[in-house]
């Protein structure tokens, strides 16, 4: 019984991590159809922002305030990654909206540059980020110990999801984004500046990659190539969930999370990974457009 509970919790936990790293991509790739290969590097930027915040707190503030660095790191990571996203959109992506192959190659190049930038600033070896003390330990449920850090990531991913929902469905700016994605030309004719909407939407998607990077520091050491290990997972979640369906990403993330954990429990880590890939391939044969299908208009 408790083993089943633990597997379920681990599945939900993995699902929430996957959701967090895929949310931003669900916006830039899912909604805007930009194949952004530098999405992983935006996650990496978020992680290093957290590292820098930690160091700033250690250097400049009394130690009793140390834990707040992490709380502050989340919005700062969001803003810094959004800023990088904005620069990318303005200087590169906007010229490539109708050319997916070019944008794939160009953003891959940007990713490599960002990795090199991280290497020059922070050095090639991994660095550690110390978790805030309130995330040490765990919640005891019967015989199980559910780590606070995992529960925090679960909570953070749900908070981000609610935030994104609120933005898209309850604010004027979010309404403009939906209008542009549904009928770009008509939105422009009604006075919506589609250029501004594109810039902002890409920045928001990038910003959530930064938040994911912040959360990932709770899972282990970080390095310049951190992003490469997450980019495939992120694309997998979006494709399984259904491109263009933001909330398909939720189903995709938790689906992959649960199956992955179950397979690993039944076999071992590497066979589990192979099985999940096979399952995804089979699934996409059956439903090529993903779990949740919606007609998404590309940026044409």
């Amino acid at each position, binding site marked *: 019984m408790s083993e089943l509970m633990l597997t379920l919790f681990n599945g939900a936990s993995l699902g929430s991590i996957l959701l967090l790293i895929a949310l931003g991509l669900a916006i830039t790739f899912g909604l805007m159809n930009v194949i952004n290969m530098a999405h992983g590097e935006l996650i990496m930027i978020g992680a290093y922002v957290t590292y820098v915040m930690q160091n700033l707190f250690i250097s400049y503030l009394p130690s009793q305030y140390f834990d707040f660095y992490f709380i502050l790191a989340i919005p700062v990571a969001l803003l810094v990654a959004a800023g990088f996203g904005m620069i990318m959109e303005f200087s590169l992506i906007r010229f490539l909206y109708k050319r997916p192959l070019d944008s794939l190659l160009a953003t891959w190049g940007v990713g490599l540059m960002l990795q090199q930038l991280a290497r020059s600033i922070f050095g090639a070896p991994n660095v550690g980020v110390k978790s805030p003390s309130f995330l040490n330990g765990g919640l005891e449920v019967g015989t199980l110990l559910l780590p606070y850090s995992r529960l925090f990531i679960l909570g953070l991913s749900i908070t981000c999801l609610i935030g994104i929902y609120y933005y898209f469905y309850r604010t004027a700016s979010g309404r403009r984004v*939906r*209008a542009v994605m*549904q*009928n770009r030309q008509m*939105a*422009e*004719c*009604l006075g*919506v500046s589609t250029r501004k909407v594109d810039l902002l939407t890409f920045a928001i998607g990038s910003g959530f990659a930064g938040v994911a990077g912040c959360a990932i520091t709770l899972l282990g050491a970080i390095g310049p190539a951190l992003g490469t290990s997450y980019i495939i997972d992120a694309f997998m979640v979006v494709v399984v969930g259904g491109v263009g369906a933001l909330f398909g990403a939720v189903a995709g993330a938790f689906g992959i999370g649960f199956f992955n954990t179950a397979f690993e429990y039944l076999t071992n880590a590497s066979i589990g990974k192979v099985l999940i890939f096979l399952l995804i391939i089979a699934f996409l044969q059956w439903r090529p457009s993903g779990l949740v299908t919606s007609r998404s208009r590309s940026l044409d």
Partner: protein
Amino acid sequence: MQMLKLQGLEAGYDESMVIRNIELQVKDRQVVCIMGRNGVGKTTLLKTIMGIISPRKGKVLFMEEDITKKRPSQRAQQGIGYVPQGREIFPKLSVYENLLIGLEAGKEKKVKEEVYAYFPILKEFRKRNGGDLSGGQQQQLAIARALVSNPSFLLLDEPTEGIQPNIVEQIQEVIKDVKHTLHTSMILVEQDLEFVKSVADYVYVIDHGSIVYENSVDQINDDEVYHYLSV
């Protein structure tokens, strides 16, 4: 005052030139109708005025300002409202949200009651998705969406095409009311000569992308117009 003036306008798609050497003007408070057979370039002309297509040659002047290089959103902000052929409703936005997007072009913050008075069905259906409305209802929404921002100039592309007679009548009444009480100037693409004569001040007939006949409505020669409209 001059509302709109087109000078030597030439536009088309990729290689093919659709409209040629268009000289046209709309004065303040004037309703100008454009007629012509299918495929002669009426929609292309309206898209060029709106800025969706950039002209190969010529100029678009709006209130004496050259707007040829401006984006559609800037033209909308300056007061040009557009009701496209095919309605172009945002399918997954509610009726009310469609109207809110219409407000983007103006200074208004709220949807005026007058607009609901023109089309009461839109108030009743305000929570429905735009895509779930019937064709006639979508057309009403498209007109309302253009009106909410108080445009000073309207482009209406066949607003009664493919719609059942009682709604056609309702839409025609709205267009007349917009002309007589709001004094909005407009370009109306329309095939029904009777209606054109009841609302227009001036008529242009297009054939093969060029203006082949023009006259003010009180001097219009029906036979000549029909000659260009017959297939």
